[in-house]
């Protein structure tokens, strides 16, 4: 028995998300009185793999195969399931990101393992095995009991703090033998998002809505985001209008994020918008309408005109940073 956690790498590098996953997995392993195995697939340097060992891993498996050079969900599922069986893992943990959402349900069927998706806390209990998950677009939570012998969990990003605990985990190199014919996906074109901080990875997000009035008013918002080391986001009408790129739209039909701080400027706080941001640890709202629903979700608020408040906020942040 073990807890096995799968983490992607991005061009051979891990992210904070990877370490959150390992921290979470090792706490689940502690609850079950067992060990934590980390699985990485693809080419990653030893020094990078060793970083996974800082968060409670007992064993790190570095799996490689030519068949895994293209991201084919079915092939990846087979590779991960093979390692799960060989390791005798009873709980499999993935991130609740694009990759995890693609792989976890397939693994669930392949391993006949009940799934708990989008968990943000440790299991409520392990016998019976009960987890908490988001439901109704963040308007409620569901407690789900998983009765199967094996379980699959996906962990929401930025919901679990890193726990340092280096057990000097050994790194095992594993050549995964797979039939190349199993890969059905052919990549015709690929575009990497480079440079800019990814919205899902950001710990601070500064977001603008229709109350920003015009695409030409984004200067101070971007300046504020730069000062805070934040990513920028927007409401749906703003991306629909083409004021901002589509990848920035948060909400039920956009990105679902959980940063430490979400600054909502000129956003009314419609339920569909809140569905994507209500798990933020803190929300700051700036809005001319004191009755805007966003203030019900926010901990801090300013009733005022974005055009006037934003420059002041930029100055105040600069001031506080210079101290």
């Amino acid at each position, binding site marked *: 028995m073990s807890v096995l956690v799968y983490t992607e790498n991005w061009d051979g590098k891990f992210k904070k998300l990877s370490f959150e996953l390992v921290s979470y997995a090792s706490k689940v392993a502690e609850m079950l009185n067992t060990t934590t195995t980390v699985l990485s697939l693809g080419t990653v340097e030893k020094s990078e793999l060793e970083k996974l060992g800082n968060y409670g891993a007992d064993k790190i498996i570095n799996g490689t195969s030519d068949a895994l050079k293209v991201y084919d*969900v079915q092939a990846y599922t087979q590779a991960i399931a093979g390692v799960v069986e060989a390791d005798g893992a009873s709980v499999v943990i993935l991130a609740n990101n694009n*990759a995890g959402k693609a792989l976890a*349900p*397939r693994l669930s069927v392949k391993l006949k393992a009940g799934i708990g998706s989008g968990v943000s806390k440790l299991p409520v209990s392990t016998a019976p095995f009960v987890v908490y998950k988001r439901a109704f677009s963040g*308007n*409620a939570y569901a407690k789900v009991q998983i009765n199967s012998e094996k379980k699959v969990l996906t962990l929401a990003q930025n919901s679990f703090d890193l726990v340092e605990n280096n057990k000097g985990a050994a790194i095992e190199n594993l050549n995964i033998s797979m039939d190349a014919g199993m890969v059905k996906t052919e990549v015709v074109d690929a575009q990497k998002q480079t440079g800019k901080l990814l919205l899902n990875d950001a710990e601070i997000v500064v977001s603008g809505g229709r109350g920003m009035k015009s695409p030409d008013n984004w200067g101070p918002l971007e300046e504020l985001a730069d000062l805070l080391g934040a990513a920028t986001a927007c409401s749906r009408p703003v991306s629909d209008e083409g004021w901002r790129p589509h990848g920035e739209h948060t909400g039920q039909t956009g990105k679902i994020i959980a940063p430490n*701080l979400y600054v909502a400027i000129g956003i009314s706080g419609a339920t569909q918008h809140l569905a994507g941001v209500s798990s933020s640890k803190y929300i700051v709202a700036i809005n001319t309408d004191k009755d805007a629903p966003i203030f019900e979700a926010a901990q801090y608020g300013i009733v005022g005109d974005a055009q006037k408040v934003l420059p002041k906020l930029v100055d105040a942040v600069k001031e506080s940073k210079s101290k």
Partner: protein
Amino acid sequence: MKVLVCISNVPDTTTKVKFVDDNKKLDTNGIQWVINPWDELSLTRALELKDDASNGIQSVTVAHVGLATAEPTIRKALAIGADDAIRVNADPNDAYFVAAQLAEVVKAEAFDLILCGIESSDYNGSNVGGMLAEFLAYPSVSAVSGLEIKDGKALINREIDGGKEVVRIATPLVAIVQKGIAKEPRIAAMRGIMMARSKQIKVVEPVGVDVLTELVNFEMPEARAACKFFDAENVAELVSSLQNEAKVI
């Protein structure tokens, strides 16, 4: 090519959810039920593809696993333009059950291209599409934001963590769709509504499935503390609270 669009029936997104039966069941009183927004967009895209005869799409079918109470939602899909509909007559308890039923539907009628949404807005599982693909041992492509047919194969835009890819893949295939798949959902025209009345909803009985998970209960999120307001003239105080009280900047 035969296309299947899987639709879930969900409370309208503005619904204020409440629970009954010791918080084990959704209080359905006064709830407006709608086609899950993603599924409406999938259906729209499937019909757009079918409109272009060169894509060689014979039919677009919708399938739903649920009780007869969901028939208005299924009728709506027919009115939008689906050719026919299949309902698996069961009250599903989890995604695994739903996917197992849909797999039988696909096997029975040999669909080539199956579209599922990235998540239902009620249980937020993001599970059915991937599970269905694994039950069928079909390839799946997730986070699909664009779909075309070229030379009998699917040409797909997908989002991956940290980028985008265009992939080519042969059918049979499960595509799990998200934002971008279609611009606006297609709206039922009068003619479609009239035609939908005469279309049959084929009802099939469920197969037995092992129960892997059960719902213990629902809980409402903890109420947030009331918002603390700062004067628009004194934003420095807000900055100081974010630094010293919330400790987030």
